[in-house]
């Protein structure tokens, strides 16, 4: 078993590869790590030189294949979730105080103000155009996309697991994965699937003396008020799991695939675990 950890996309990424250690495993792990770095350089809203920052600054660019792919996935997710998942929450996130990497957020700041979401995004070929006054945040879905791409690269070599701070893919064998619950942890044996968890128990800060967090309700343009503390979804891909976890947290009906929800006091199985 080969294991490698590194920091990317504002979190710790863990790669596990179940083959004999050697040159092949080293090369595969290096390729997967480079893929994370490459996608972060393209898709981070915190890097002024990223392709996403150029799009947000200019309103229209001829983008590379990855930005077009992730934006397309995000728009399809917005359609599928009736707008609960929305990539145009950038300004609402900034107004909520999430205007720099989470590690660099200050202790407190001005009160949160609502910002309009749901802006139009047009994709034609490789051209992406934003409605004036709207910008994109691809944070969560970009991380899910990177996890899926890294798992594709490692999966060519052998059974693998990629875990980027909670967005996780397990391929080609059963992998025991710990999932946080309200009162501890359970272990799920996951094979050929992905897990993502959305919640307000980690990325939170204070603005105007009140708690704020990163899960924006696009209908209000403000950090969402949810009955849940945390929602964990198991789905075929990390991208899909990420979208569904956020949508359920924001009020989408709980249906299959597998969903675990945690309220303040307990974690319950809300559907699907067979």
């Amino acid at each position, binding site marked *: 078993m080969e294991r490698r950890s590194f920091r990317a996309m504002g979190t710790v990424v863990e790669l596990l590869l179940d083959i004999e250690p050697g040159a092949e495993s080293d090369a595969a792990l290096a390729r997967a790590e480079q893929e994370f770095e490459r996608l972060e350089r393209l898709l981070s809203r915190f890097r002024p030189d990223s392709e996403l920052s150029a799009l947000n600054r200019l309103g229209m660019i001829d983008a590379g294949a990855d930005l077009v792919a992730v934006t397309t996935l995000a728009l399809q997710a917005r359609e599928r979730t009736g707008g609960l998942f929305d990539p145009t929450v950038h300004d609402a996130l900034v107004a909520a105080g999430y205007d720099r990497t989470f590690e660099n957020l200050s202790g407190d700041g001005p009160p949160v103000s609502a910002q309009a979401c749901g802006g139009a995004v047009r994709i034609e070929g490789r051209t992406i155009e934003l409605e004036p006054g709207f910008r994109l945040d691809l944070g969560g879905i970009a991380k899910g996309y990177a996890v899926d791409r890294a798992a594709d690269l490692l999966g060519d070599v052998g059974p693998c697991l990629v875990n980027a701070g909670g967005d996780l893919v397990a391929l080609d064998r059963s992998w025991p994965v710990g999932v946080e619950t309200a009162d501890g942890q359970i272990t799920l044996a996951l094979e050929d699937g992905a897990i993502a968890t959305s919640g307000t128990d980690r990325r939170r800060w204070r603005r105007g003396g009140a708690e704020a967090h990163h899960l924006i309700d696009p209908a209000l343009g403000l950090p969402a008020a949810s009955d849940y503390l945390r929602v964990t979804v*198991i789905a075929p891909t990390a991208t899909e799991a990420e979208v569904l976890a956020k949508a359920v947290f924001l009020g989408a009906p709980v249906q299959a695939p597998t969903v675990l929800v945690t309220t303040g006091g307990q974690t319950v199985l809300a559907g699907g675990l067979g």
Partner: protein
Amino acid sequence: MTDHVARLYALAVAVLVFLVAWAAVADRPWASASTATPDPRVQALIVKQQRVRTEALAVQRVLAARRQQAALASTTPPPAPSVRVVTLPPLTITRTS
């Protein structure tokens, strides 16, 4: 030979000469002389036309195969992940992202 007979002979000869000349003109000997060395630009265009037709057929075949694959993909949902609760120690832990 009377003048009348001589005129008839003359008329017959004239008709014969006219028909021979007509046949010679209808044969268009100059046309065969010009097509004996075809214009290379025309030849190149003919070759190009054939190549474009072949390529168009190949593209249509690829498009048809891709449409078929897309139709299959849209009707076949991805397999559901296998997951169950176990008592093994975890190899990794997933948290709120």
